[in-house]
């Protein structure tokens, strides 16, 4: 145990995800020795993120206002919604520059073991958005694992007969990956899910 302030810092850091007691100690002593300007910048960043950043009312992505940058952008196609698990998935898809529609961030995936059901995800908000009638296509881009697949199945059933086109992001071999290095499970699934290529 250290003197009050140091121990408080270690305790607070230790509560962060992915930081163990040893890591917390290392960060704390790093901060103690750091330039006070650096520390001030960190403190400002922390305060700002809490003060300014919030979740978009519409899509659930991180935002600086009521609407996130994407939802507020009039050039984005409001008739297509891509459903993802986390804000980081939005970033990943944006990087591809393939998609010009808007997003809906669920905040996770269905996983009974972790006590997460549809009620704990932003499913109801999605239904409300669809009720407006403007949306024509929903692209489900949950993770290609069991929980993501279950969430995708749940959503596609829910959306089955409300008059929107529902698609699922093609899963299987990682894009840009080498067939040679794909593991057998992925490769096996890719074979099962193979589609006819129309010439």
């Amino acid at each position, binding site marked *: 145990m250290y003197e009050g302030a140091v121990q408080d810092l270690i305790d607070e850091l230790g509560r962060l995800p992915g930081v163990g007691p040893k890591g917390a100690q290392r960060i704390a002593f790093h901060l103690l020795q750091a330039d006070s300007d650096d520390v001030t910048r960190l403190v400002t960043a922390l305060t700002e993120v809490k003060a300014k950043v919030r979740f978009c009312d519409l899509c659930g992505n991180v935002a600086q206002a009521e609407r996130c940058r994407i939802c507020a952008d009039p050039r984005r196609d409001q008739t297509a919604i891509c459903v993802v698990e986390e804000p980081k998935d939005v970033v990943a898809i944006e990087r591809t520059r393939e998609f010009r529609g808007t997003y809906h961030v669920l905040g996770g995936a269905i996983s*009974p*073991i972790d006590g997460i059901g*549809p009620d704990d995800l932003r499913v109801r908000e999605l239904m409300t958005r669809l009720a407006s009638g403007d949306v024509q296509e929903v692209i489900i881009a949950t993770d290609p694992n069991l929980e993501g697949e279950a969430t995708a199945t749940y959503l596609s059933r*829910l959306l089955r007969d409300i008059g929107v086109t529902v698609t699922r992001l093609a899963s299987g071999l990682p894009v840009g990956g080498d067939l040679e290095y794909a*593991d*057998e499970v992925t490769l096996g699934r890719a074979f099962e899910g193979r589609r006819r290529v129309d010439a």
Partner: protein
Amino acid sequence: MYVRHLTLKDFRSYPSAELALTQGVTTLVGLNGQGKTNLVEAVGYLATLGSHRVATDQPLVRFGAAQAIVRGAVVRDHRETMVELEITPGRANRARLGRSPVARPRDVLGTLRTVLFAPEDLSLVKGDPSERRRFLDDLLVQRQPRWSGVRSDYDKIVKQRNALLKSAASVLRKGRGAPRRPRPGDEPVDEARAAALHTLDVWNDHLATVGSQLLYARLRLLRDLVPDLAECYDAVSAASSNARATYRSSLHESLAARIGAGEVPDVDALRQGVLDTLAEVRATEIERGVSLVGPHRDDVVLSLGDLPAKGYASHGESWSFALGLKLAAYRLLRRDLGDDPVLVLDDVFAELDSGRRDRLAGLIADCEQVLITAAVGADVPDVLREQGMTYAVELGEVHPLTPQPVPSPSQPVPSPSAPREPNAVFGSESGGIPVSSETNAAFTSQVGEQEGEQEGEQDEGSGR
């Protein structure tokens, strides 16, 4: 294929060990508790990433050590591949193939294939259904490593589904009737119940999809295995016993009856069967909070003539039955691969009468590599010991009893890339100190009392 060299570090009782092996029969003889099974267990681990004795990795690591290393040089078609596994309990194992690390340990599956028969396998006949399911599933993975992923997906689906049945039990039990899609404005309880039922449907769907694949694969495997089982059982017991294995499915009666009669319905029929049965048992599942339908609830019924083996077969008959299953598995893999897996027979001969011993010896004479352990050398038929190497295992050290490995006449000539070593090598690499007076000891290692002594291990000759 065969294992040309085995290296152990902190595996079971061995601080370090180097063992040179050859094609043909190798017999390890020694008193109880000297480390014979530990050696062949390591070979099995390289092939399956699991032990035939324990479900967790902790007991595999030498008491007091943090991690164990098992390395094997595997020769197939004149080509040698090095497989190495680093076993660290509580953490993911690491694996290397040749010189490069692989992304996941399961990527090494298939490099070495073994069929291992040990006293524990008696539970195939006498034990719970889970033992027989594991036998089929392990064999599936040996045949096609991709099943390892399907199997773990399936296990996760069952766990998720059970968690849902338990957590949603209170909501699900309220009210009856068909589920309705949740809509905004529903009463909270109705809405929660509808959502839970829909989530359950989703998991049913996944259980049916993955479960039917696993079931289909098991049924085809069993169909391929059954003729060999009868032949191998009869060959060992010199009788015409009609040893059979039939699949007992948890699906609804009419489908289960077809499956029990040896039919293999197609995957779609099985998938529909799972869904239909799930619909039938829904109320019971919600009541009990467990998944009652699917390959995780199935069994394989073994029978001799008109009687079930479990509860009726004698000790020797049960033993021969388990042996018959393993020999059938060996034949199946041999056919599939166009190559022999490594056959391991741990303590098998002591349990068999002399006729069965000799007939088993005849059956395995043409296998590329056989590793045999026995507490009493005389239990192993002379023909096997004459044509191969015999080693004495004592306190974790191995010394040859026969001066030179004599290749059996049926063995192919060893390739230049994989020379058969007439004199086995010494265990200097891992710093093992030779305490043997034999200069051509195939193997050297010490138990316990060496450098790096850990607390709690003062007892020399460790824990017998």
